């Protein structure tokens, strides 16, 4: 009896026990909306569809902690005047989107919901789409358990990468948004992450990198560091 009492006292001393639900251990149920998206994902890239799907932006995101991976493809209506800095009303809308993931139910549901938000009502303008926060996705899903919120960030990040890819594809290097990586070339906004990804996709020298990132001329000052990183990542992954 005394033992049980001791154990009980022990338990109450743990301020925040780690559990698999929420931080507070409250609700861990999925909303109806989450289940609906999980069982019937919208705009999912089906097997073999990537051969025919037309897109001008592709982005990848992944969290090393859980082995998740997310890829998003977007088709954006181009500006009629590529030289103008800003798209006029109704331009640069996201016309179509596909995604695919290695992730869990929450990642599937939240990216499915995000994909709906991107293309409904004739498609969101890319600048507005970039303003979507994980909170907006969670709101649309009704809710997500706390511990699953980070899964919704995956789709969001992959979309940002896809938007950056679209900006590069259309020569708008100044519009590329950088987050969480080291900038190597300020003008062209090339980051260490860009180089790492390029190497993973087979780039082994400067020319190939330029081709991959659609860069015509690279700044002389950045070349040594870029070449160094290409070498570094090639050794890291392929030696």
């Amino acid at each position, binding site marked *: 009896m005394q033992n049980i009492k001791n154990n009980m006292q022990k338990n109450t001393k743990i301020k925040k026990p780690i559990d698999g639900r929420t931080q507070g251990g409250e609700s861990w149920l999925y909303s109806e909306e989450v289940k609906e998206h999980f069982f019937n994902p919208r705009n999912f890239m089906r097997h073999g569809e990537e051969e025919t799907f037309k897109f001008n932006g592709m982005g990848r995101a992944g969290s090393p902690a859980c082995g998740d991976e997310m890829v998003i493809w977007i088709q954006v209506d181009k500006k009629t005047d590529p030289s103008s800095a800003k798209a006029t009303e109704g331009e640069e809308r996201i016309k179509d989107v596909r995604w695919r993931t290695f992730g869990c139910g929450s990642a599937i549901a939240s990216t499915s919901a995000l994909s709906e938000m991107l293309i409904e009502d004739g498609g969101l303008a890319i600048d507005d789409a970039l303003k979507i*926060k994980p909170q907006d996705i969670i709101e649309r899903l009704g809710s997500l358990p706390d511990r699953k*919120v980070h899964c919704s960030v995956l789709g969001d990040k992959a979309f940002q990468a896809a938007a950056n890819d679209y900006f590069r594809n259309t020569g708008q290097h100044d519009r590329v948004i950088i987050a969480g990586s080291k900038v190597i070339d300020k003008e062209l906004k090339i980051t260490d992450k860009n180089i790492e990804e390029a190497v993973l996709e087979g780039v082994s020298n400067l020319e190939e990198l330029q081709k991959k990132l659609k860069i015509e001329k690279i700044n002389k000052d950045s070349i040594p560091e870029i070449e160094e990183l290409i070498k570094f990542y090639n050794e890291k992954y392929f030696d």
Partner: protein
Amino acid sequence: MAKVKIIREKCIGCGTCPALAGGTFEMDEENIAIIKDNSTDDKETIQMAVDSCPTQAIVTEE
């Protein structure tokens, strides 16, 4: 405002906290979350980021 702290060793760089509360958190060059000097987020937003950290690397200081 609730004071928060990041345990660097626990952070896995998933980027959830700046995505939820960009006025308070950002990722540094090593892709680890850091706290900005002047937070512009409300208490609820910060708490949401604290609760959502997959490794519980953000702690609230009482």
